[in-house]
């Protein structure tokens, strides 16, 4: 009866969703998110098999061995257990886990590196940093900065360098890549690329206080020409980001979108990379020398 209700629930959900778009996670628009989508689908199929085995066994035991079906004087036997069965239900799960472990290690390495097919391309580096309930995007190569929106060229490897000016946040554009934390004392990296032109929801997914629910941004992928044109526009029409203006931005709670023709990295460099962080006792001067290499 319970299983029946569960099944109905699943079917209900499926029919409800059938008319709509596929679920966000299963609607990837870039190689990183696609790898993850495939991994998740594979794991769901594997897990469905395990559920089937357990449910079948349970249904069998409950229908065959209920007291109402047994003779009144039936006395169940004493059974110690069976080595053969125990070996079977230990070894098969180990094989399943080993299989999933291989999948995990491979896909983790895939999404933690430059996407396949972009190996010979220099990635576009964008620094994404959070403060209160907003996101700052710095393009050191282009020398521009935006708040609460990020534009990306399609078919180009992109590296997001993440950090935070406060509590831990998590940078997430589900249709392009999995999330990663942005923290105050080190820089983390997300590799991604967008396969097609479009607008995608991006957000902080890690709770960081009162304004958390509204901490969203738009990630828009565009052709290289449109991207270059947009960069030119920002460079020529927007004001540079002064330290004073940036401090004002940092303390504000929520702000709308804005663009600047210089980045905050020039006067407020990003913290260290994770790998460097792990390899050194953090001393004052190392912070400075490390960040200079990224933010020229």
């Amino acid at each position, binding site marked *: 009866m319970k299983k029946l209700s569960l099944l109905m629930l699943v079917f209900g959900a499926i029919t409800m969703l059938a008319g709509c778009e596929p679920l966000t996670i299963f609607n990837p628009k870039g190689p990183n998110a696609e790898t993850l989508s495939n991994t998740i689908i594979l794991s769901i199929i594997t897990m469905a098999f395990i559920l089937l085995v357990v*449910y079948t066994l349970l249904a069998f*035991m*409950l229908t065959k*061995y209920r007291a109402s079906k047994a003779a009144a004087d039936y006395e169940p036997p004493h059974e110690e257990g069976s080595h053969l069965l125990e070996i079977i239900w230990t070894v098969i799960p180990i094989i399943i886990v080993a299989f999933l472990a291989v999948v995990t290690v491979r896909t983790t390495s895939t999404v933690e590196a430059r996407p396949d097919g972009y190996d010979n391309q220099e990635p576009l580096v964008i620094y994404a940093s959070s403060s209160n309930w907003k996101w700052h995007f710095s393009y050191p190569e282009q020398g521009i900065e935006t708040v609460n929106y990020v534009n990306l060229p399609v078919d180009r490897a992109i590296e997001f360098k993440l950090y935070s000016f406060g509590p831990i946040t998590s940078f997430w554009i589900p249709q392009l890549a*999995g999330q990663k934390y942005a923290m105050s004392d080190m820089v983390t990296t997300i590799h991604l690329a967008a396969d097609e032109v479009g607008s995608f929801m991006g957000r902080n*997914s*890690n709770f960081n206080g009162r304004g*958390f629910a509204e901490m969203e941004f738009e990630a828009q992928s565009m052709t290289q020409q449109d991207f270059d044109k947009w960069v030119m526009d920002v460079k020529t029409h927007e004001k540079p980001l002064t330290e004073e203006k940036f401090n004002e931005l940092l303390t504000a709670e929520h702000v709308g979108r804005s663009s600047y023709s210089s980045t905050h990295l020039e006067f407020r460099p990003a913290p260290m990379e994770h790998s460097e962080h792990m390899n050194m006792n953090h001393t004052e001067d190392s912070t400075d020398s490390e960040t200079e290499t990224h933010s020229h």
Partner: protein
Amino acid sequence: MNAKELFHPMQEPMILAAAISIIVGAVVVVAGLTYFKKWGYFYKNWLSTVDHKKIGIMYIAVALVMLFRGGVDALLMRAQTAVPDNGLLDAQHYNEIFTTHGLLMILFMAMPFVIGLMNIVIPLQIGARDVAFPRLNAVSFWLFAAGAGLLNLSFIIGGSPDAGWTAYFPLASIEFSPTVGNNYYSLALQLSGIGTLMTGVNFITTIIKMRAPGMTLMKMPMFTWSVLITNVIIVFAFPVLTVALALMMLDRQFGTKFFAMQDGGMDMLWANLFWVWGHPEVYIVILPAFGIFSEIIATFARKNLYGYKSMVMSMVVISLLSFIVWAHHFYTMGHGVMVNSVFSITTMAIAVPTGVKIFNWLLTMRHGKIQFTTPMLYALGFIPIFTIGGVTGVMLAMASADYQYHNTMFLVAHFHYVLIPGTVFGVLAGYHYWWPKMFGFRLNEKLGKTAFWFIAISFNVTFFPLFILGLDGYARRMYTYSASTGYGPLNMLSFIGGLGLAVGFILLVYNIYYSWKHMPRNEQADIWDGRTLEWATHSPVPEYNFAIVPTVTRLDEYWFAKKEGRDITAGTFEKIHMPNNTGTPFWMSGFFFLAAFFAVFSQWIPAIISMLGVFGFMLHRSFEKDHGRYISVEEVAATEKKLRGDK
């Protein structure tokens, strides 16, 4: 801090209503005790008791109250998110509510329920007359109660913690959480955590040293095994929490920089310390539930537990693995492929011993004679629902895929699918199963079963939609969302499920009242035709548990003795040594509570004076000569005659 700020939570109507209900409840209890002139009885029999059974009952009573406190939080959250752009709660109150929901349910509902059942059952199952340190046991309970009281007080005075039950730094630092809410967090958890640590020491000693003659380790009932392993985990895991909370207090109230963003502090250190305790904590609340299911499935299938040795081994393996998986709570922190892969593999490995247990339970039922009693329904409901929680756990364990599940409703659905069918069904199964042993009458089966079906079905209606929402990119802990996301309908479904759960839990508690009024008294001792020693003594159990301590020769001794027509409780009575009741634990914890309360507001002088009170009681205890007392042979004989004659 002025009075207006101090009582700022009360300015919100919802919070005010909750606060009033807490105060009214307390007034009713006090007035009732005064009216019926029961203060003396209450103090002598409950507040100053060292009897493990009474302490266990008090643990469970507090757990049930907290279940409703945390449950109201849950309903408010589901109501707030039931429709898009809802204004029932603002962000601040939503944040306080999901924080206290997590804290209350894990630390002040699941933990005391589990510890309460351990208290009641373990000495009975191993044929002991009490725990190893009865007075310490009372200290454990009263420290826990002080912690629970302190956390609930935050609701009324000063504001609740609002940085999530994980209280990640720097969010939980004084800079980003300037109210006293997170001071309540560090101090309330510290008090109850110290209590839990003492429980760990107490029960390990009890199980190692006080088993009935002949009961070797491999002849112990499975629940006793699960509790032994759980308490070993407690002793290793809780000191980490103690240290982490102390550092948190120093950071917030004394200006240290352990978890600060600058001056050499490290916010990631908190996340690591928290989960080094936090992951084993999950197994602390789940392993005893596994033990309970093992007892119940064997009893109502009328068969011995299948694969006893592999059941023990699998729990030992789970307890070891539980300490080396903590980083899976933050795969997204950016530690490289290598670290994430190692933690993925250790995490997935837990599925293997857990699977062994599931198959052993299923095979226990083969060739059995299954009776569908209320406790058995919970045990049977556990298997299919918990398996969903288990397999989604394996999915989450895959580091790469976790980049998409982390911080989403998928994760929320997963851990509710583990903790509710696992821990909550487990303790509810145990509660129905051992209730007649505690009180001498049954809980009504019909009401019990109705409540079960409400809870089991509503649970799936509430939490299954959250899996789908998570896969659709719905982040957890958002107090609201816009209609354009399309998250509305499934959230509404989830809210309806939440209402069903509320009905189920109200029925569950109504059943106490109904059964107290209507169920026949003086049930026989062995009401379920049980297999373990607790069923060999009377219901309700006399103070000394067993007049004659039974001798054990094999696993399920009592079951085989019944079959062979032996009476394992026969023998000549001797005088019985018992500990004296004492009010010290109650009053000492009272001073602990005061000290912690003043410390929340950084009022150090009164806090230090209160701590002097605590040390005063310790000093008194150090010089006190209390060798306990003896129950004479005549008294034992009279009690036994009365309990036997009644049947």
